[in-house]
């Protein structure tokens, strides 16, 4: 340890590294979520044989496939009149966007986005929360459940029948699929024998978990759509049925935050999927990729799953509510238990 990085006898390197990580993760996830709003519009357009956003340009005639539309969207949302209807519950109406957004951001903290590395005697981990913290992957699962409150608060505060309906539907949706979601993850915990993301990733250095547990991945994947309120399970937001659901009464940047939280959720759940089933930052056939290559691998996998969310959204229609419930409780839950028991039995037999 060198003496040059101390302040009042404290070691500065871990603090500085922590700040860097927090800023990088915050800025990275935020901007990725913003880019995803553009990717959604453009992807939708291309899937539907349209052109999509391409008119916004800066510095002369630079258009770059319309990516500057997201700046335009952001500016518009910030400067738009923030209309608060008279009939809403004021305090909750103001808190709701934060309640939706903050848990969405928090979930990403545990995800290792690159391989830990040694630097002048320090082991620097590339996840905001260092390994060995005792909560591991239980943390994002717990945080993900908090997202329900954002939607529920927003819909309740709106004091409007459609919004209320949307809140009820969204909550039912998320709560129902939470269980199967967790059951799929528990099977991974059993397999690995740990619930720290670093250990889960280390255990996937040979074969990714998706090969070992294809059914579990499928379960997780389906529930992820329900958890993030994306199509085909976007019951909180069914435009054709309940206007815009819990978003109806919101305007300006409150609406922006609620929207953005959906995309941040997408990023977080994609990161979970990558960590649990696709080897996190592991690069195939490379034993020790190092921080840069591992980060690139992680980012590529993350982007793929984010795109998958968009792709599925513009392919499938929304399920009916009774279909949602029957799939969640009558199919996914038993399958989740069967999957868990099967792997428990395998491990007991010493096969897996």
């Amino acid at each position, binding site marked *: 340890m060198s003496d040059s990085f101390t302040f009042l006898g404290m070691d500065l390197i871990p603090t500085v590294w922590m700040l860097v990580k927090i800023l990088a993760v915050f800025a990275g996830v935020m901007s990725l979520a913003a880019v995803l709003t553009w990717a959604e519009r453009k992807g939708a357009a*291309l*899937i539907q044989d*349209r*052109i999509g956003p391409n008119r916004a340009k800066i510095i002369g*005639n*630079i*258009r*770059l496939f319309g990516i500057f539309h997201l700046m335009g969207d952001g500016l518009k949302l910030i400067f738009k009149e923030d209309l608060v209807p008279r009939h809403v519950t004021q305090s909750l109406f103001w808190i709701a966007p934060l309640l939706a957004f903050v848990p969405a951001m928090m979930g990403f903290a545990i995800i290792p986005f690159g391989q830990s590395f040694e630097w002048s005697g320090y082991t620097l981990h590339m996840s905001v929360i260092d390994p060995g913290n005792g909560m591991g992957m239980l943390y994002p699962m717990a945080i993900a459940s908090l997202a329900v409150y954002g939607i529920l608060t927003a819909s309740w505060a709106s004091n409007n029948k459609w919004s209320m309906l949307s809140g009820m539907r969204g909550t039912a949706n998320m709560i129902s699929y939470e269980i199967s979601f967790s059951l799929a993850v528990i099977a991974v915990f059993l397999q690995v024998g740990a619930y720290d993301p670093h250990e889960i990733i280390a255990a996937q250095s040979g074969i990714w978990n998706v090969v070992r547990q294809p059914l579990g991945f499928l379960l997780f994947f389906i529930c992820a759509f329900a958890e993030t309120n994306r199509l085909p399970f976007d019951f909180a937001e069914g435009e054709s049925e309940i206007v815009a659901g819990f978003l109806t009464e919101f305007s300006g940047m409150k609406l922006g935050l609620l929207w953005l939280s959906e995309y941040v959720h997408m990023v977080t759940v994609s990161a979970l999927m990558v960590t649990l089933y696709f080897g996190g930052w592991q690069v195939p056939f490379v034993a020790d990729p190092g921080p840069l290559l591992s980060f690139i691998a992680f980012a590529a996998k993350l982007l793929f799953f984010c795109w998958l969310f968009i*792709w599925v959204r513009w*392919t499938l229609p929304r399920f009916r509510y009774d279909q949602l419930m029957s799939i969640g409780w009558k199919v996914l839950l038993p399958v989740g238990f069967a999957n868990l028991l099967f792997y428990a039995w395998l491990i007991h037999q010493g096969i897996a």
Partner: protein
Amino acid sequence: MGVVVKKVDLTWLDRTYLWPIAKGMFITLKHFLKQTLTPTQKRLTVQYPDMKRPVLDGYRGLHELKRNEDNSVKCVACFMCAEACPARCITIEAEEFGDLNMLQGLAEKRPASFQIDMLRCIFCGMCQEACPKDAIWLRKNYELSCQSRAEMQLDKFNLMNTYTEKDGSERVVPEPVLKTSNNQPG
């Protein structure tokens, strides 16, 4: 009378939802790739201000008052077009003129003013058909937006020059080819 809706019996494969979803995903991927790989010029969407569709023959757009060889107006102020116009948007005032003087009694007729109210015009082409001198044509310019109502009242001078550039050359509007600006995004 009610319509009997036949219930579709799903196979067990369809009941899993997964296989139909995979098929659907494949279809959307195909569309995505096809649209991504198609150059902008060949896509179905014509991006209007940058690209224009060719205008068909017989299109009835903005009027032009044609000229003689010596650049005088062809119109003889016979009022046929004004009579034929179902929208009553043409207003003509006639005047006499001639190389000979009035005493010699040889005078010709021409419009002193020829106004078309473009806000009333329905581009039916009746004036063109009624004209005995082939003096009024409806041509292919369809970009007729203006800042004020007053600008839409075209007079004789405007109508004689609707298809003329500032230097007097013929203005060809619009280009009958798909043209794009050089920085056309996908």
